[in-house]
């Protein structure tokens, strides 16, 4: 091995070996460890390498029981904080820990012990560097949470498929509800028309959520891709509308089937009084009375 010419490359290989070693021991390596594993490394060179690694963030320094430990840190993450000052680093770290659930600005303040103006400045600079982003939570419209820029926000924050910019898309849900019901209805109609007895027809008319999911995906009414769980919750609204029933299949999943009701529309709601919004204020005397009731007059015409 040509030492004189290869000192630069030797340095980098030594560095690689050291990082390799640190990677294999996530709990950290001590100076003794390094000496054992890489005995041919001179102490001065080790100090240079470690200093370099600590500077670019691929190693971290810990102190336990008067012993120094080096820990490996993922370099893909560390690159982003490059050129940031200490406050930014700390705030970044706090936000990073929060993961895809995000963290509220108040909590950052408590954890970082920074004051409000300073924190705002830090957050702004991190945001302009596209290191973090602010996401509006659906549970409280004024609450902003921060998370790393490249993370996809958790469904508890965005509300899942049903939210577009933290607005609930009720029309979208309504359309899906109708389509799911249509699918179930079609299925039960088909099963009935095939004949072969009521039991057979009933068993044929059951559909799983993934069947419905397939149908909805093929329809192409949804711009975003829906999961089977999303469809499951839509199907539950169909059940709540009393248009379908849900049973548990032998494998623990749910089966759905379109059903009709027992009772026809009751007579009371065929009158105007049954659905009158001001029926409680209606009396013999006063402006609202059955003799001059406009609802009545309109209905009788």
């Amino acid at each position, binding site marked *: 091995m040509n030492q004189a010419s290869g000192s630069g490359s030797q340095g980098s290989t030594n560095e690689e070996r050291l990082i390799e070693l640190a990677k294999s021991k996530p709990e950290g390596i001590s100076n003794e460890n390094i000496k054992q594993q890489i005995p041919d490394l001179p102490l001065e060179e080790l100090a240079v390498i470690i200093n370099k690694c600590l500077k670019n963030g691929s190693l971290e320094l810990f102190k336990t029981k008067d012993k120094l430990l080096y820990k490996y840190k993922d370099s893909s993450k560390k690159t982003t904080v490059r050129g940031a000052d200490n406050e930014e680093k700390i705030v970044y770290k706090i936000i990073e820990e929060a993961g895809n659930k995000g963290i509220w600005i108040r909590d950052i303040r408590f954890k970082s012990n920074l004051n409000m103006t300073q924190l705002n400045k830090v957050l702004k600079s991190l945001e302009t560097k596209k290191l973090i982003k602010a996401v509006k939570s659906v549970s409280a419209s004024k609450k902003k949470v921060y998370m790393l820029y490249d993370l996809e926000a958790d469904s508890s924050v965005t509300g899942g498929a*049903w939210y577009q910019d933290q*607005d*609930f898309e*009720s029309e979208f*849900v309504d359309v899906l*509800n109708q389509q799911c019901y249509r699918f179930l209805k079609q299925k039960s109609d088909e099963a009935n028309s095939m004949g072969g*007895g*009521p*039991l*057979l027809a*009933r068993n044929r008319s059951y559909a799983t959520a993934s069947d419905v999911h397939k149908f909805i995906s093929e329809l192409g009414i949804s711009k975003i891709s829906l999961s089977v769980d999303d469809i499951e*919750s*839509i199907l*539950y*609204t169909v059940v*709540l*509308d*009393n248009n379908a*029933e849900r*049973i548990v299949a032998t494998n623990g999943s749910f089966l759905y089937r379109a*059903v*009709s*009701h*027992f*009772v*026809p*529309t*009751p*007579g*009371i*709601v*065929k*009158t105007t*009084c*049954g*659905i009158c*919004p001001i*029926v409680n204020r*209606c009396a*013999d005397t006063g402006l609202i*009375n*059955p*003799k001059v*009731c406009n609802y*009545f007059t309109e209905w*009788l015409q």
Partner: protein
Amino acid sequence: MSVQYGKVISLILQERFGPVVEKVGTYLFQYGTVPLLYIKKNTNLPLSKVKEALCILIKYRLVTFTPNRNANVANYTLQHDQVLLTLRYANYINLIKKKFGNECEMIVEELLQRSYWTASELILKVIERFKKDHNKAVTILSLREKFISLVNAQYLIRLPYSEEDKPVPNLILPETDQFVIPQFELKQMTLVQSGKAPVDSLPDRGVYWTVNFDRFHQDMRDKLIVNAFTKKFDENAGEFVRLLLQQMYIRTTPWAEVSNPVPVIEIRDNVRKQATHQHLLAFFDQYVSVLEQDNSQLIRQGGEAGGGSLQIFLKEAFVQFAWETVEQIVLEKFDSKAARIFRLVKSKQYIESDQIQQLAMIPAKEAKRLSYQLLEENFLQVQELKKSSSTGPNKSFTLFHIDINQVIRMTLELCYKTLYNIMTRKNHERLVHKRIIDKKQRVETIIMGMRVQGAGDEQLADIEEMITPPEKEILQKIDLTMKKLNSVELEIDETIFLLQMYLLYQ
């Protein structure tokens, strides 16, 4: 028993029996059981009028009496539920017509009009009416058969009578006597018919018959159940349930909450005998399992012995029907979204508003608005749970729940109010157009009179023209309005019946 209910009752009495009876009836409704002189004192009517009104009410079995502590004075009680039943008469007549035909329809109709009558006189009257209205001769013998079949089917029941002679008689009817066929003497009846013998000479004098409403209600209940099953499943399932109910009567009291087990074989035999529902017969076992495995759980396996037997849960059925009715009312009154919330609260029993938004998939704002609207109209209730803690903020949960009994009573109240409104409106319309209606009646009587005198067509047409075309238009409109209001009255009564059944089974 509410103010609204009382108003409906007095309106019905007013419509059927006039203002005096209405006054007495309303007083009785308000004050419960009272003796004669109290009524006189508080209504300010002359004694003779009060007596007359009470007689009419007692005749129609709308008022009952019991001896006071002084056995010479009677206490009178208004049977308010019976008063309400008068609205259902059209339904009863229709039911009998469908089941037994025209002759029986007329028997029941006459009996409902008179409240009670002896069998022989009733038959004679029906024969007379047939002759007059339809120009059709009906023999005593055939009508007697019809009458007996009605008694056997328990649609008619003997009126309670008194055996001892007391100032205030105690009317009783031993259970064994309820449906004993009366004695008919055909010879005597023909004599009376031709006017050769007095009515008193008939052998069944004093044995009065009346309509057994209870039996009609059983029929209406059964019909409701069968229709429900037909709607939910198909016609064959409906037929199956009908036969099941028919077999139920053999071993269960009519108003039992749960029927005793009915062997499946019996139903199958009946289906075979009828031979009307081939599809049902072919897939009989499948229908049994479909009905039995349904989520509603109204029909359940009673036992395995002898090919299995089935039980039908009548109380449970009406609980479910009442729920569905209320759900439909919520649906129509508020929106499908509100109905969804209502059902969600029903299925979860106690639920927080956050969960409502999530599970019903309704935007937070709308969900809140709807649930509080339902709360305001008393369809939902809230229960607040406060977590008491000495330190830290007090946490409280607001849980929504439904008190179905209360909702149903409230709906029933709404039905009464609607009935009252419709009847008031009807009277009002009549009052507004009184002049034209009176004119029409006058013209009609003149035409009738002239026709009898043998006037020519030209003369008749002249008189008919006294009603001008615009007046005719108005008359037509009134006619339409009345028809609409009347039909709606019957439909409301159906809802009332369903809800009353629910309360009856509670």
